């Protein structure tokens, strides 16, 4: 099986090509092709996972194959540029690939029901396959460059899929926002890996960790910090960490299955995966790790607080995704990739399920405002119960999957001695439980507010929900039993024993959140509007997400477009301006500078010759080395 691992990304690519070039016309065939592609990858990745466990392939001795992709031989004193395209199979990538393929399969099945009757039906499945390809390429990559390649591709797919319903201007706007925000992250990432290459002479993960392990890198601590910080810019954008988190909530403009797989389960987790993959690098610089940890903590907290007041079901889930991603990044920052990846895995399942559930709700009631829903528990039992399971898992209630991974995170944070972050995280756990059950009590159990004719969705949509629910319940416990900690780790294997104290505290917080939500939104012991009035400023602050978007909009308009405008003016007007201005001044003194007012053509000429004169003068001065002696 391992030899076939390289096929895992290829199948979806083939599916994409087929759909685009051949089967675009026929919806059913396109679906079949997309499904076939992803299922094939799923089968192989299961095989790979099993074999990885059986053969005892560890992080230390991974299975690696590579082909030359770009070879520029080094000419004596000039360094060359050697880039491979390879596959790297170790528990980390094996598990990740299983997660991606299984979720992609379920989501594609779900989409058949969800996208039914959409004009862009085939195009949708083509994009989905393309995304699967890029994501798997990113996961299976054995070097930073290849990873960056997939990284950019998933960005492109997310752009295409967010803007899928481009009739909606908001969708178009969101797509651009997401793409451009991510470009700024990639900017750092790209610069980082180039610097990395210049200093280490390789992109390959294995070789880099070897070089660092031997301590023979001869790279200064400062430059290592710089590199790791630059690379972290990538995850900050992709995993929507504060302050680059603004694009993710808007990304909910896309179709809900897209939000579930790209912007909840897998793509946004790519940043976390990168952190785990390149951890050896980040581990070299304590400053970077500290930065990562606190960025994660801040994200987790502010996102949870935003989620408290949202009305849009998808936005609530989006902010909870943000805060969970914050968890993962934070815990990797404190040094435990085990906990981070563990939570990534469990979160992928239950968050994907929550989104699909939300999708099925939206499909039924055609609104996203939870205050317009209510009373759905009767009409859509399956959706309701799966949703509740997901919420419980997210809240981290024993024995659902979320409990185990969240406990891991809290434990790791506590053991690493970040007491502040630990209490913050625990608090966030409570907030999470609160806003999730606020959602549930309003949308599913609250009295019916508008007359929507909700009905349970088609089996295409419910079956994946049920399967995911199964994962949401058992994946955490199962992975612990499988000894996840001894498979995916950095340095020494990590055995996930339950620390009763921490587990208890977090559970108490979670239950507290649920009870609070129950009291406020089900029993209505307090008038929410009154509370809104009482805490108006805070409420507004949270409702407007601390005005961060507005600040960015302002910055973007004022600064970037301003600079553009300025350059443009320079290029257009200044020449004329100077010319005319001078012309005006000298017209009175005499006509000898009339030429200053001639048409633009001669102003170009003026600029050319003026530039020459200035350059010569500069050359004469020591500024440029005073080459004229």
């Amino acid at each position, binding site marked *: 099986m391992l030899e076939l691992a390289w096929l895992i990304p290829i199948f979806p690519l083939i599916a994409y090509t087929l759909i685009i070039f051949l089967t675009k016309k026929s919806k059913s065939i396109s679906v079949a092709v997309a499904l076939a592609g992803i299922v094939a990858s799923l089968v192989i990745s299961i095989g790979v996972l099993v074999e990885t466990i059986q053969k005892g392939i560890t992080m230390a001795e991974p299975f690696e194959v590579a082909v030359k992709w770009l070879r520029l031989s080094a000419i004596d004193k000039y360094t060359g540029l050697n880039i491979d395209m390879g596959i790297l199979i170790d528990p980390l990538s094996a598990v990740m690939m299983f997660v991606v393929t299984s979720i992609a399969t379920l989501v594609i099945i779900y989409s058949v029901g969800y996208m039914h009757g959409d004009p862009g039906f085939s195009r949708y499945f083509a994009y989905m396959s393309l995304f699967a390809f890029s994501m798997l390429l990113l996961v299976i990559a054995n070097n930073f460059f290849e990873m960056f390649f997939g990284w950019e591709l998933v960005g492109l797919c997310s752009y295409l899929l967010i803007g899928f319903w481009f009739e909606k201007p908001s969708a178009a706007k969101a797509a651009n926002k997401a793409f451009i925000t991510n470009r700024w992250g990639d900017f750092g990432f790209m610069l980082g890996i180039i610097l990395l290459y210049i200093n280490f002479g390789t992109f390959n993960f294995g070789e880099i960790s070897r070089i660092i392990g031997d301590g023979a890198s001869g790279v200064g601590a400062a430059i290592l910090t710089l590199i790791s910080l630059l690379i972290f810019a990538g995850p900050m954008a992709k995993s929507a960490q504060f302050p680059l988190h603004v694009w993710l909530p808007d990304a909910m403009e896309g179709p809900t299955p897209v939000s579930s797989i790209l912007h909840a389960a897998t793509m946004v987790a790519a940043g976390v995966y990168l952190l785990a993959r390149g951890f050896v690098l980040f581990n070299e610089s304590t400053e970077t790790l500290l930065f990562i940890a606190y960025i994660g903590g801040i994200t987790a907290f502010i996102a949870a607080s935003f989620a408290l007041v949202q009305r849009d079901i998808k936005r609530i889930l989006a902010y909870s995704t943000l805060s969970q991603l914050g968890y993962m990044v934070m815990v990797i920052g404190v040094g435990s990739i085990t906990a981070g990846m563990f939570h990534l895995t469990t979160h992928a399942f239950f968050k994907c399920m929550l989104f699909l559930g939300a999708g099925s709700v939206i499909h039924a009631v055609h609104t996203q405002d939870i205050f317009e829903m209510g009373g759905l528990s009767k009409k859509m039992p399956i959706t309701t119960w799966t949703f509740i399971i997901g919420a419980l898992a997210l809240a981290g209630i024993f024995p659902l999957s979320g409990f185990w991974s969240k406990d891991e995170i809290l434990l790791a944070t506590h053991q690493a001695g970040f007491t502040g972050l630990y209490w913050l995280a625990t608090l966030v756990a409570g907030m999470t439980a609160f806003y999730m059950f606020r959602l549930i009590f309003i949308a599913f159990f609250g009295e019916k507010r508008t007359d929507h004719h909700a009905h349970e969705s088609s089996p295409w949509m419910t079956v994946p929900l049920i399967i995911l629910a199964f994962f949401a319940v058992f994946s955490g416990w199962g992975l612990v039993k499988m000894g996840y900690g001894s498979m995916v780790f950095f340095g020494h294997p990590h055995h996930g024993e339950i620390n009763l104290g921490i587990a208890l505290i977090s559970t108490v917080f979670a239950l507290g959140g649920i009870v609070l939500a129950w009291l406020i939104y089900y029993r209505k012991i307090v008038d929410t509007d009154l509370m809104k009035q009482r805490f108006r400023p805070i409420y507004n602050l949270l409702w407007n997400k601390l005005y961060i978007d507005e600040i960015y909009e302002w910055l973007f308009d004022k600064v970037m477009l301003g600079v553009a405008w300025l350059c443009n003016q320079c*290029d*257009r007007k200044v020449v004329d301006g100077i010319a005319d201005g001078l012309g005006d001044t000298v017209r009175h003194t005499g006509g000898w500078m*009339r*030429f200053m*007012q*001639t*048409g*633009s*053509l*001669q102003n170009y*000429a*003026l600029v050319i*010759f003026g530039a020459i004169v200035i350059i010569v003068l500069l050359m004469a001065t020591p500024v440029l080395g005073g080459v004229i002696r």
Partner: protein
Amino acid sequence: MITLEYYLILAAALFCIGLFGAVAKKNAVAVLMSIELMLNSVNINLVAFNRFLAPSQLVGHVFAIFVIVVAAAEVAVGLAIVISIYRDRFSTEVDNLDWLKW
């Protein structure tokens, strides 16, 4: 005794006069003529250098001849375009050439 410097200074002066004309003249034909002046200053340079530095071979002269010929071709094209512009706008003023805004 006239040394190389004289020629170079003459050429430089000629270049500058041509330059002034090129940016100062309003009439496209006049601009063309000024550009010719610039090219001729180059010719003076070339011939002078050849005479004073490498009189043995005639590279400078050959270069000058080529410059003259190419300049003639350029002028021919230039005048043709001037004519076509005149047909459009009934003027050969370079100031009027601002339809293509920046």
